[in-house]
């Protein structure tokens, strides 16, 4: 294998057979779309879709000091995760920059599983290993043996329920269940703003699981729809909305930082929280023509971190770092979109909120 060969998920053959358009992403060859971003997006908003997210990484931390270790390493209060619970947190540098954003699941009293972003996973694991040396904990890189499917949408739960006799985990809960005869670690989490589950499965069971979920009616969805869905829901994308030069406070992730736990970076972040930040991440929508994209500059200061066309709202949307004094909801501003000044307005987050079920 050449050094720059793309990694393939266990489901790669299925994507090719389904006519997916495959693109390089974070070192993997991944489906960006099957039939079209718009249809896939709507399938998740209206029914159920399934994403191959096997490129994401996993690190297993176990041992008597697993809690103390993760408390030091990650930004949230890990002691608040019950067995079978899930929590969002950040991996930060000493100066408070964001190295990655993570989901951590507590599998047992002293066993945790942390899901990392594909592009950050090797560095993340190296950091886990380095910091673990001061604790009585074993860290294991579980990425290569693990596939991951996200089944998302208002009908995702019913669809998976039809394939399992086990009770499904509730929102922000996780447990091992059997789906279509395949053992999976199922979590009530996702990246779409819809209800749904993420299923971690050993590589050997991935094809059988995928086939069962698709046969049951889930629409295969690519990274294109994953991005439009997450941006409508205002979930951060590492590399766009978060990076080592941005701190959690300006990114609007102060809620995921519990400085009292003494995590790496907590002192710097306490300072940002106390003193405020020069910029702040906002959600916006375009008020006229044009679609802002990541990297477009805001007239008068600031930059678009993510931008796309919203299939639900049918306008350009995005997130941008704006000067704090000009970042309140309703503020109108202009974005330099390839040389044209396009008007936009700061909106409430999220840009899309799932309607409450009627009673």
């Amino acid at each position: 294998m050449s050094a720059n060969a793309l990694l393939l998920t266990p489901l790669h053959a299925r994507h090719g057979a389904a006519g997916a358009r495959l693109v390089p992403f974070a070192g993997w060859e991944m489906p960006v779309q099957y039939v079209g971003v718009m249809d896939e997006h709507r399938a998740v908003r209206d029914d159920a879709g399934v994403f191959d997210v096997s490129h994401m990484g996993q690190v297993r931390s176990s041992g008597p000091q697993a809690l103390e270790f993760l408390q030091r390493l990650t930004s949230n209060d890990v002691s608040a995760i019950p067995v079978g619970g899930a929590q969002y947190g950040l991996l930060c540098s000493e100066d408070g920059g964001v190295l990655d954003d993570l989901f951590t699941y507590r599998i047992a009293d002293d066993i945790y599983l942390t899901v990392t972003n594909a592009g950050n996973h090797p560095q993340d694991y190296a950091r886990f290993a380095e910091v673990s040396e001061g604790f009585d904990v074993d860290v294991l890189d579980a990425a290569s043996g693990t596939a991951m499917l996200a089944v998302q949408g208002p009908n995702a739960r019913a669809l998976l329920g039809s394939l399992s006799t086990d009770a499904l985990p509730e929102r922000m809960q996780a447990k091992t269940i059997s789906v279509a005869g395949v053992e999976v670690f199922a979590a009530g989490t996702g990246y779409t703003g819809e209800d749904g589950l993420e299923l971690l499965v050993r590589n050997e069971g991935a094809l059988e699981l995928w086939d069962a979920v698709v046969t049951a009616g889930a629409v295969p969805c690519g990274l294109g729809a994953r991005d439009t869905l997450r941006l409508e829901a205002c979930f951060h994308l590492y590399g766009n909305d978060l990076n080592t030069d941005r701190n959690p406070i300006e990114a609007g992730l102060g809620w995921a930082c519990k400085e009292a736990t003494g995590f790496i970076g907590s002192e710097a972040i306490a300072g940002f929280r106390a003193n405020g930040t020069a910029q702040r991440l906002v959600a916006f929508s375009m008020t006229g023509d044009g679609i802002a994209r990541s990297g477009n500059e805001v007239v008068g200061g600031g930059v678009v971190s993510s931008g796309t066309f919203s299939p639900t709202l049918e306008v350009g949307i995005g997130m941008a770092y704006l000067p704090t004094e000009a970042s309140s909801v309703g503020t109108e501003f202009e974005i330099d979109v390839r040389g044209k000044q396009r008007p936009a307005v700061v909106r409430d987050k999220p840009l899309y909120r799932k309607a409450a079920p009627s009673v």
Partner: protein
Amino acid sequence: MSEASYPEDLLYHQEHDWVRFDADGETALFGITWYAQDALGEVVFYDAPEVGVTLVKDESYAEIESVKAVSDVFAPMSGEVVEVNSSISDEPGVINDDPYGEGWLVKVRLTSVEEKEALMDSAAYTEMLG
């Protein structure tokens, strides 16, 4: 979406644009090919030029955006824009559904008709696509 096709009554530019000459041979419609719209995906925005703008062969005169990407549209020949397909603003997807018909982009009064010698016919364009 439409099926792949490259009509024989059009001429083609290597940047995946087509030209359809009017009967007088002095004006023409421009658009993007099936290949171009397929590569872009579902079109959601057409940033059209103004009527009266001068187009220069091989230079960008408009932008077309899909959900994921933005693409320049190149002039296959030089001329002056005399009409813009304004119906695309309301329904950009027509570029995907009917790239050679309802999805035309601009009508142009050609200033250098001999430039057509540098364009490809359907067979040559199809061969270029491989």
